[in-house]
């Protein structure tokens, strides 16, 4: 029997970290440059959008008269708090003034007498995020050849996001909104057996960057958007439903708590760059291989931490399962000592 080959936790492995440009960027690093995690690799500008300033309405003037009250013209740069329009009231009873809501450029005065102000882009310094070498500079991203720990998930949603790794619960715990606290903002959280929808909503509100969890209900996973991004990245390590995060992944992450990582739903992985003395050989590029005795395997089962075990024996011919279907059989022993007999086709080989 052949089974899919999965490297759930790759320690001391080399990988290329993609740093996507958040907007128009000018790169200051070139291919082959050595970089530290805090090295600036590009100067970028993030567009802040546009805003309509309702001049005519706020001054109580007609649209055609707006221009005569404006103190700035189209193309002028304006600054937050600066007075951009003024109207003197009749009989010297005072004046009405309108101030700019932000730094920007006046781009248009429309037929309603509204001013369109394009906000000035915010300058951002994009750092490497990991120590290593610049592998490639592309049109919309820069790749850093680095090394560290790679956690492979079962399913994922959301674009690549970065943050400090933080534990929010043991493998068996449900991830409820109470687990998501203010200090989770900007971080990548891990732990738990079931990520509740309300917890996702709270995490979004607080600006959590990512959550790595054992299980999630399928309907909640779909609500994260397949192939789209709702503002948070979720990596599911075991499957849909209440499934404790695997002991191998949980213990690896516990050791990496408070380090900086990158989680990607699209790539279904979590990357944690680290300073390494030596690199392991790259994980096998094969996706499947024949199942053998002593293989470490993952058995998908709900409501139990017994999901990683070792193949003790393999049947030499097909047997009839309780379902009435014929299948090749494997006997698997879990770390807890429990032994189960399962269809070999239902196993994944865990590369260690």
């Amino acid at each position, binding site marked *: 029997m052949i089974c899919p080959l999965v490297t759930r936790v790759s320690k001391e492995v080399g990988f290329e970290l993609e740093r996507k440009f958040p907007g128009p960027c000018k790169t200051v690093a070139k291919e082959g440059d050595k970089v530290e995690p805090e090295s600036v690799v590009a100067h970028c500008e993030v567009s802040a959008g546009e805003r309509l300033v309702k001049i005519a309405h706020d001054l109580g003037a007609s649209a055609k008269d707006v221009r005569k009250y404006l103190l700035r013209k189209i193309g002028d740069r304006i600054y937050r708090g600066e007075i951009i329009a003024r109207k003197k009231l009749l009989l010297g009873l005072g004046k009405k003034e309108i101030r700019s809501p932000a730094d920007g450029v006046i781009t248009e005065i429309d037929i309603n007498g509204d001013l369109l102000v394009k906000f000035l882009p915010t300058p951002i310094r994009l750092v490497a995020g990991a120590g290593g070498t610049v592998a490639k500079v592309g049109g919309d991203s820069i790749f850093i050849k680095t090394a560290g720990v790679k956690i492979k998930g079962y399913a994922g949603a959301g674009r690549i996001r970065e943050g400090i790794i933080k534990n929010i619960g043991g493998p068996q715990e449900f991830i409820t909104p109470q687990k998501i606290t203010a200090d989770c903002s900007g971080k990548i959280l891990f732990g738990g057996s079931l990520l509740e929808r309300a917890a996702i909503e709270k995490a979004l509100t607080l600006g959590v960057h990512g959550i790595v969890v054992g299980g999630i209900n399928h309907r909640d996973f779909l609500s994260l958007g397949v192939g789209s991004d709702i503002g948070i990245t979720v990596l599911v390590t075991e499957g849909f*439903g209440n499934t404790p995060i695997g002991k191998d992944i949980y213990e690896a992450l516990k050791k990496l708590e408070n380090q900086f990582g990158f989680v990607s739903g699209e790539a279904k992985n979590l990357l944690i760059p680290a300073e390494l003395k030596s690199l392991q050989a790259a994980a096998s590029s094969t*996706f499947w291989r024949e199942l053998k005795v002593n293989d470490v395997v993952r058995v*998908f089962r709900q409501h139990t931490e017994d999901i990683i075990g070792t193949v003790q024996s393999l049947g030499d011919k097909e047997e009839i399962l309780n379902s*009435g279907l014929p299948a090749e059989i494997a006997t698997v022993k879990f770390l807890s000592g429990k032994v189960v007999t399962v269809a070999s086709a239902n196993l994944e080989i865990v590369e260690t």
Partner: protein
Amino acid sequence: MITPLEDFLNLDIGTSWTKAFLVSAGQESSVKTTLKLPTSAEDLSFSTNLLIGKIVSKSKTPKIILTSTYNEAADLTKIFKASFVDKETVRNELFDWFSLQNFENPLILDGGASNYLRNFRVSDIGAYLSFPISETDLENIIGNKSLRLETIPEDRNQLEIEEAILRSSFSIVPELHNPAKFNTLIITGGILSWSTETTRSALLLLDLMAAGKVVQVYRDDAAFLSSYGALIAQKKNFKSQDLKTLKNMGCLVSLGGSGKVSLDYGLSEIQEVTISENEIALIPATSSQKVELSIQGSEKIKFRVSGGEWGIILDGRIKPLALEFGQEKSRQAVLSWQQALGKVQLLEI
């Protein structure tokens, strides 16, 4: 002309499983070896190569014929010096062969993995289950299956869910709702081919058949049908060879309630069977027994059918079935029907 004792290795690279069949041609052609492995979808050559290796070592070098739902499988022909037959050609060849077999209005129902990738209403699937389960848990099980299509149901509940998914998938087949047209159903793929309890497939079909619908069922119990289609596309002579591709399971009759059926075996007397509402009855009849069956009602319609492994099954349940997800009454009804069909003694055919 087929070269005497020429061997053909037929591989059907399916969405979830790859099936391999070594067919020996000669005076008595036969399928000598059958093997299957999960399809290594990321690298189709891996599972294909392993199967070829396992079979070719036991035989002299056979001619390799591939067919697949994956378009990229055509590229494997260079690696394995094989011929490739696309699915449309396979289908056309099979329907030609069905007409040679005198199958009336043949219809293939494929229980393969692609059924699990369709959009479902979970409540439609849940309605066919005999055990309580929440909608969320059911969605999770289906979600997990959609990511690991090669997994095999290990217990009864998992099997029931997969059967219910097939019911939901087949429920849109218009022929099953048209009582005016007799069909020969050919069931193949996945649990329809591999389940050892074939009467569960009979119940699956009966559940979907409209009142008045009569079908003759043939089962492809090795999931060989696609490979056979590819083989006859390449070697026409096999159309006239008996490779025991299909097994005649028998005739299914959906009465849609109480009713009376006449069975004329060509003997001196005509057998009349009265079915009560909600009764499922079995008339033992072997594959060789040709029967003229008529449902007595306002309009007497006659069908030429035969028995088979199941015999002739008469279904007196009101159609469409009044099942509702989450209702104990529905679960009990499903369980009682499973038990009724489970008592069927399969006939030697």
